[in-house]
């Protein structure tokens, strides 16, 4: 187990190193003089440009720049934002709570909604199943920005039930403020998780051991809980993991649509103004989150399915 | 310079640290029929796959009519030569045919690859082969999915016969079929052997079947040969305790499962004490032409 973990972490480190190189390198491919981007498109005298080049080490060879950057990243120093003239780390840290809240909230909606709808559909074949399938079919096809626009115009413009802006402070207020964004973010993925839940539960329902349990007089609800849902958790976890990891990017759309200031929105606005130090840092963060979530999913799997246990094998 | 159609010496294969096949040797006369028996996981399939070149042996020698066929074929010429000598019929008739290829095409494909026939000749040959296995025009045009298991296995046999091989390897070729169909296929195989002189290497775990189809028998146990000889003799007077156990395990009137269970435990216990020697040397009364098995078993 420990060996497995170490191997995985080493793998992640390598992945991050390669991706960081790719990210940093690709940004360097950008046509145009980085110094002019750093000036934010203002009129810039040659003297000012030279000063900027000096400040951002733009005169160093690429590898030196990369090494300096990655060295900083390792110590938590992501450099300075060109537009905000602040430490990138601080910029991101200030926005991270909102984004994490949003992801957590949406993740919860996705998991609960997905499980409930998926289970309902799997167990109540017929009208309920049909309704859920049609609903999730449409939900998965609704991009979050379309959902966002729909939700805003209905719930905050027409009905005025939810606030139109802001992240909120304190638990209840946040919940109130982030409900619509989380719903917009979750919609597509609730559909996805519901369908995966439904499919894998139906597949488990067809398994012989479920029939065996029934044939032994185990009540239906116990069969569903202990044999069907329990066994279906594997694929559900995988999909939920991928989805939650993906939310970190998907939030950029929702945060932009709702005008929330989170990491995603920062990414979008930084791309717009070519604030590369910020883009690099957030990209790396997203990749890190992605691989971390995947690692967690991989660690959770053996807990769900003992056959995947890395510790022991062999047969009696 | 040998009279054997297929000769295998000291074959060995490991998967990781698991030894699947260990020092297997045997030979098969042209037109002969040899059965490899053993329980699940004893290495039967692995042996068969090494012989047709689907798996590379770790060591050992395979020769067909005296030509070396060890290892995975590299060039086109060796590949084709081996294919004209050895063909295989697989266990699961539902998976051994390309679902997109019609029966007729399926039989024509090897003809096209191996023989420079005109399309007309090829069609004639194809029809011959299909007729040989009892399939008519109606089945020829069909896709495999429209055929029953028995019919599919007939197609597989026709396809294997197309290259006119010296030896046909049948890995549990009838195990997935119903008894009434299995018997049909066995009838057919016997007929083909009579007519064409092809040799058979049967892989099976069904001893009752072996009695009716194989001249010689080779008993595998945990990747090693524990007993070999003419089927009649081995089945009549099995020498190795494992062979005896296997034989007694076949249900029949007067069958005593409790006794078998006891024997099995005894055998397992005995083998546990001497894991290096699964076979008692005196049980190997007949090892054709090579003593390697004897040697490896005697150490």
């Amino acid at each position, binding site marked *: 187990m420990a060996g497995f973990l170490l191997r995985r972490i080493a793998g992640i480190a390598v992945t991050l190193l390669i991706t960081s190189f790719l990210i940093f390198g690709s940004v360097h491919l950008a046509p145009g003089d980085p110094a002019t981007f750093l000036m934010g498109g203002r009129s810039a005298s040659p003297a000012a440009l030279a000063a900027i080049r000096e400040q951002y080490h733009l005169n160093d060879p690429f590898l030196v720049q990369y090494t300096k950057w990655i060295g900083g990243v390792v110590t938590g120093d992501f450099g300075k934002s060109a537009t905000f003239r602040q430490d990138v780390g601080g910029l991101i840290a200030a926005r991270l709570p909102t984004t994490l809240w949003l992801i957590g909230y949406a993740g919860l909606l996705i998991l609960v909604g997905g499980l409930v709808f998926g289970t309902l559909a799997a167990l109540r074949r017929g009208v309920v199943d049909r309704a859920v399938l049609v609903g999730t*079919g449409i939900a998965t*096809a609704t991009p979050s920005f379309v959902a966002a626009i729909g939700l805003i115009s209905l719930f905050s413009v027409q009905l005025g039930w939810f606030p139109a802006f802001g992240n909120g402070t304190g638990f209840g207020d946040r919940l109130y403020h982030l409900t619509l964004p989380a719903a917009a973010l979750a919609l597509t993925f609730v559909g996805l998780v519901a369908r995966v839940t*439904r*499919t894998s539960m139906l597949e488990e329902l067809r398994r012989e051991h479920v029939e065996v349990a029934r044939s032994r007089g185990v009540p239906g609800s116990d069969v569903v809980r202990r044999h069907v849902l329990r066994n279906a958790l594997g694929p559900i976890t995988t999909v939920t993991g991928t989805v939650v990891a993906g939310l970190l990017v998907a939030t950029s*759309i929702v945060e932009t649509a709702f005008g929330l200031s989170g990491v995603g929105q920062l990414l979008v606005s930084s791309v717009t103004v070519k604030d590369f130090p910020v883009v690099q840092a957030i990209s790396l963060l997203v990749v890190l989150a992605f691989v971390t979530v995947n690692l967690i999913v991989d660690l959770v799997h053996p807990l769900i399915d003992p056959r995947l246990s890395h510790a022991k094998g062999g047969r009696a | 310079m040998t009279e054997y159609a297929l000769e295998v010496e000291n074959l060995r294969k490991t998967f990781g640290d698991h030894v699947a096949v260990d020092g297997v040797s045997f030979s098969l006369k042209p037109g002969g029929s040899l059965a490899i028996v053993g329980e699940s996981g004893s290495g039967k399939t692995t042996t068969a796959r090494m012989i047709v070149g689907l798996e590379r042996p770790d060591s050992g020698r395979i020769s067909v009519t005296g030509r070396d066929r060890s290892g995975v074929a590299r060039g086109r010429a060796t590949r084709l030569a081996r294919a004209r000598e050895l063909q295989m019929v697989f266990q699961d008739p539902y998976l051994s045919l*390309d679902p997109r290829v019609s029966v007729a095409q399926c039989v024509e494909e090897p003809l096209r690859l191996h023989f420079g026939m005109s399309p007309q000749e090829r069609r004639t040959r194809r029809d011959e082969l299909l007729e040989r296995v009892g399939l008519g025009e109606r089945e020829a045009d069909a896709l495999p999915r429209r055929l029953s298991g028995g019919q599919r296995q007939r197609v597989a046999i026709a396809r294997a016969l197309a290259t006119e091989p010296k030896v046909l390897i049948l890995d549990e070729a009838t195990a997935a079929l119903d008894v009434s169909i299995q018997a049909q296929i066995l009838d057919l195989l016997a007929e083909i052997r009579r007519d064409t002189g092809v040799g058979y290497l049967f892989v099976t775990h069904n001893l009752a079947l072996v009695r009716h189809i194989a001249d010689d028998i080779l008993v595998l146990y945990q990747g090693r040969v524990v007993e070999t000889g003419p089927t009649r003799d081995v089945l009549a007077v099995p020498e190795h305790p494992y062979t005896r156990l296997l034989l007694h395990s076949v249900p029949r009137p007067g069958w005593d499962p409790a006794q078998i269970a006891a024997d099995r435990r005894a055998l397992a216990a005995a083998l546990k004490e001497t894991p290096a020697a699964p076979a008692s040397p005196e049980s190997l009364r007949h090892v054709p032409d090579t003593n390697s098995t004897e040697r490896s078993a005697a150490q």
Partner: protein
Amino acid sequence: MTAVPTIHRRRFFAPLSRVVGGDKLVTAALALLALLIVAAAFAPLIAPHDPDAVDLSATLSGSTPEHLLGADQSGRDVLSRLIFGARTGLLGPLIVVIVSTVLGMLIGVTAAWHGGVVDSVLSRAMELIFSFPALLLAIILVAVFGVGLTAPVIAMSVAYAPYVGRLARSVALQEKTRPYIQAYRVQGWSGWVICVKHLLPNIAPLVLAQSAINFGYALMDLAALSFLGFGVQPPTADWGAMINEGAPSLLQGAMLPALAPGVAIVITVVAFSIVGESIADRVARREQ
């Protein structure tokens, strides 16, 4: 929007068509897609107006006989823009799907067929791409190469390839061990021929099913990028860009400029997933 659902060989999302409407639904979806393609191809003939024609007197007019789906802020005909918008709306995903399918198949089948070092190198490479969500990759490329359809399409073609690749690899791995493939090897065919003539055609339907579903996701992702202002640029009529342009009008109570393209996206994606799922379902049923 990067978690593309993946088809598993036997198990698959319940195809909507199997529960509701049956083959009729699939037919309807196919008809809709055909209609859309025709509309996109012959947009100039079909659209009632020039998509860029400005009529400032019709600004934000609701549905009228002249403008069936109303007019946008600049007084352009929403219906005509919708029809023209199908062009970039379909072309982008089409390229993404074609490139990612070809790339994915190539990688997946090569990895599965060769195994060993080739497999582990290719699988690692796919894993590496996997750690970049498609949208992130697109955003990075936009940051680097600037806005427009090109960078996102390239990014997404690359980002989607491993989804196809992983599926192709796992299906090819299974298929490779099937006796019929082995029978061809025993017959003496070369690996190439078996791969191209037998393995590929047999895994193709499932991979295509995945690609049909990917199409919908690519459409959503590209529209999202246009919505963010990174993709198709104004004044080109494009569904995502139309939503971006139409969003401020919601304040004035004009729903159509933003809603119509939104609905178009949803319907198109649903249609593609119905088709993709029903292909996958057919394959799965044939297998059983």
